[in-house]
């Protein structure tokens, strides 16, 4: 019973925070809302017998990635004009509507498949670090190696693209964009 209550609270906050992320105008607020959302998600993960993933979620996501986001937001130090979103016109509403239709359709599909299914007792050891580690080094050995390549590529890429080039047209760009 308590689990259910916690679920509702977490998911409510999570969805609300997500909504705030995509609607608030200040990027800093957006990032903070996203952190809240991700934290609530971590709670949901924990409910799903995925304690390790929940911990990683807090550490990697809410910790590392979002700090990076905040850092960049601060770095760019956008003016209000830059951050301005423009009016929410019909096109945007239409886009939202399509997203909503997508949601409904997706939900119907999921409902047809999963309606009435309930969770049994979690298998012992589900979510244990040891079991995950074993999988990572056997079944997912290749993926593990690929991920390391991916991270290396990302590091190299980020270093290369953010070096200051000779054609840094910051001033000219500002003039043109206003």
């Amino acid at each position, binding site marked *: 019973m308590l689990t259910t209550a916690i679920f509702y609270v977490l998911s409510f906050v999570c969805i609300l925070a997500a909504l705030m992320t995509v609607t608030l105008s200040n990027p800093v607020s957006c990032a903070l809302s996203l952190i809240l959302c991700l934290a609530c998600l971590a709670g949901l993960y924990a409910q*799903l017998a995925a304690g390790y*993933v929940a911990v990683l979620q807090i550490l990697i996501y809410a910790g590392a990635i979002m700090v990076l986001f905040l850092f960049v937001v601060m770095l760019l130090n956008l003016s209000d004009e830059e951050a301005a*979103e423009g009016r929410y016109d019909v096109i945007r509403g239409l886009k939202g509507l399509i997203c909503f239709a997508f949601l409904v359709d997706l939900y119907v599909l999921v409902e047809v498949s999963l309606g009435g*299914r309930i969770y*049994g007792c979690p298998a012992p050891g*589900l979510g244990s670090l040891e079991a995950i580690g074993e999988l990572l080094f056997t079944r997912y050995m290749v993926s593990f190696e690929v991920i390391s390549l991916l991270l290396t590529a990302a590091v190299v890429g980020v270093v290369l693209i953010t070096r200051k080039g000779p054609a840094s047209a910051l001033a000219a760009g500002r003039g043109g964009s206003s």
Partner: protein
Amino acid sequence: MPAPLEYLAVSCILFGIGIAGVLTRRNLLVILMSIELMLNSANLAFLTFSRLHGQLHGQVIAIFVMTVAAAEAAIGLAIVVALFRQTGSVRIDEATRLRG
């Protein structure tokens, strides 16, 4: 304990909010956040199913996805910074030089 359907509903809603953010926001940083939201909704789905099937595979996949998300965020932010340096703007609707 809530049913799998309920977890999945949250996942679907997050995915919808994420894509809506990508489609409607002008600020590139927020668009990147929305993409993160979409990846997270997929993760929630993986964990929901992992629990449903009583397997670990979903959890392992979720860990991989997180790593991918980290790499993606890093590269995305780097590109945004690079673009900002060149044009002084992080508005997606202003990057329309390429068209036709």
